[in-house]
């Protein structure tokens, strides 16, 4: 792992590139202990062929000669501090581009990519758009997005179960969106992505009516971390025993501030409300920045 940026390199790919740690940091600061602690081990370059970045796990070796007496060292450091720093940098970069970033989170199979392509089709003539796609493997989803004409960078997390702010920062370097909207489709997982701020303006949790009404209670962290819940696949409600009111009540127990919209990407019902929310969120973000 790189001591400076802390990313576990080796199995993550961003847009086909092996993530190559090409940042300009000098390692001198970290090497005051002055022993043979070379960094090449951390910097695998497995793939570099376009728009996919690769991260993985290099073994960590550190050998320090020296003291033998046990002592206590106070650290008092937040383990997520590094992710928070990257998230803040992303937030600043997005603000400079006057671009609203939405972090879309859900279980696998909730229909995130279908909803996203339907959203892009409706918005692409109104606003500049871009997409960062997170999946463990394949760039199938980025290909589906690019078919709409919207630029997309695929991040393959390898063994990782979530996107982190560092991966998103590198993916952002490959996108030129300005005065628009960046959609970040996170890895399908209702657990881990809740804990990683990517620098987005809002987390949007997507729950389809083919899942259980009690999912917000089973996975409260994600529903707590989100500002908007999209209840999707509502065209299927007639065939299911899904209790919409109970589901929304469960979500609000976990997060009383949560806004809820119901829609179907297939029939188009409710899509205008979602697009309206996006435009409103964008307006709210730019209001603060123009002055």
């Amino acid at each position: 792992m790189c001591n400076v940026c802390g990313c576990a390199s080796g199995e993550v790919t961003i847009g086909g590139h092996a993530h190559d740690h090409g940042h300009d940091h000098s390692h001198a600061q970290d090497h005051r202990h002055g022993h043979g602690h070379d960094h090449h081990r951390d910097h695998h370059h497995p793939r570099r062929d376009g728009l996919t970045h690769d991260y993985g796990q290099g073994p960590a070796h550190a050998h320090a000669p020296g003291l033998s007496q046990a002592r206590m060292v106070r650290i008092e450091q937040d383990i997520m501090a590094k992710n928070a720093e990257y998230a803040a940098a992303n937030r600043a970069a997005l603000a400079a581009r006057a671009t609203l970033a939405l972090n879309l989170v859900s279980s696998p199979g909730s229909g995130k990519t279908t909803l996203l392509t339907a959203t892009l089709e409706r918005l692409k003539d109104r606003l500049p758009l871009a997409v960062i796609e997170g999946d463990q493997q394949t760039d199938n989803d980025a290909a589906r997005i690019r078919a709409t004409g919207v630029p997309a960078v695929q991040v393959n997390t390898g063994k990782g179960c979530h996107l982190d702010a560092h991966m998103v920062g590198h993916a952002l370097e490959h996108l030129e969106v300005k005065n628009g909207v960046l959609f970040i489709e996170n890895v399908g997982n209702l657990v881990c992505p809740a804990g990683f701020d990517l620098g987005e303006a809002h987390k949007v949790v997507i729950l389809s009516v083919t899942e259980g009404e009690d999912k917000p209670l089973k996975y409260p962290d994600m529903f707590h971390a989100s500002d908007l819940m999209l209840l999707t696949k509502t065209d299927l409600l007639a065939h299911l025993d899904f209790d919409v009111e109970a589901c929304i009540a469960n979500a609000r127990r976990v997060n009383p501030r949560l806004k809820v919209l119901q829609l179907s990407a297939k029939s188009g019902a409710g899509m205008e409300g979602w697009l309206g929310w996006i435009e409103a969120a964008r307006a709210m973000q730019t209001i603060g920045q123009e002055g």
Partner: protein
Amino acid sequence: MHEMSICESILSVIERQAAAQEFSRVRRVRLEIGPLAGVELQALRFSFDVVTRDSIAEGAALEIIDMPITAWCMPCARSVEVRQRYDACPRCGSHQVQITGGEELRIKDMEVD
């Protein structure tokens, strides 16, 4: 699964500290982890052993300090302890409670050589 990346972050902090504070071996690491941090402790212990192999923290004992979930109850205007996010205030039964603690994920200190 992200317990693994949390352990990588811990190791990265340890290695940076090793350089700054000049130590070569870590015997014990104490973490403060709140119940709302989303961390599975058993998985964390397992990952810690794997990630620290061949590092200055190899074999280090991992000690976890339990933290309470605290919340501010608006009707009571005081801090209360709850068991999960959607609990009502244990004193007055109101749901107008805001979580104030329990999401900690911190390295408190280390015993080093």
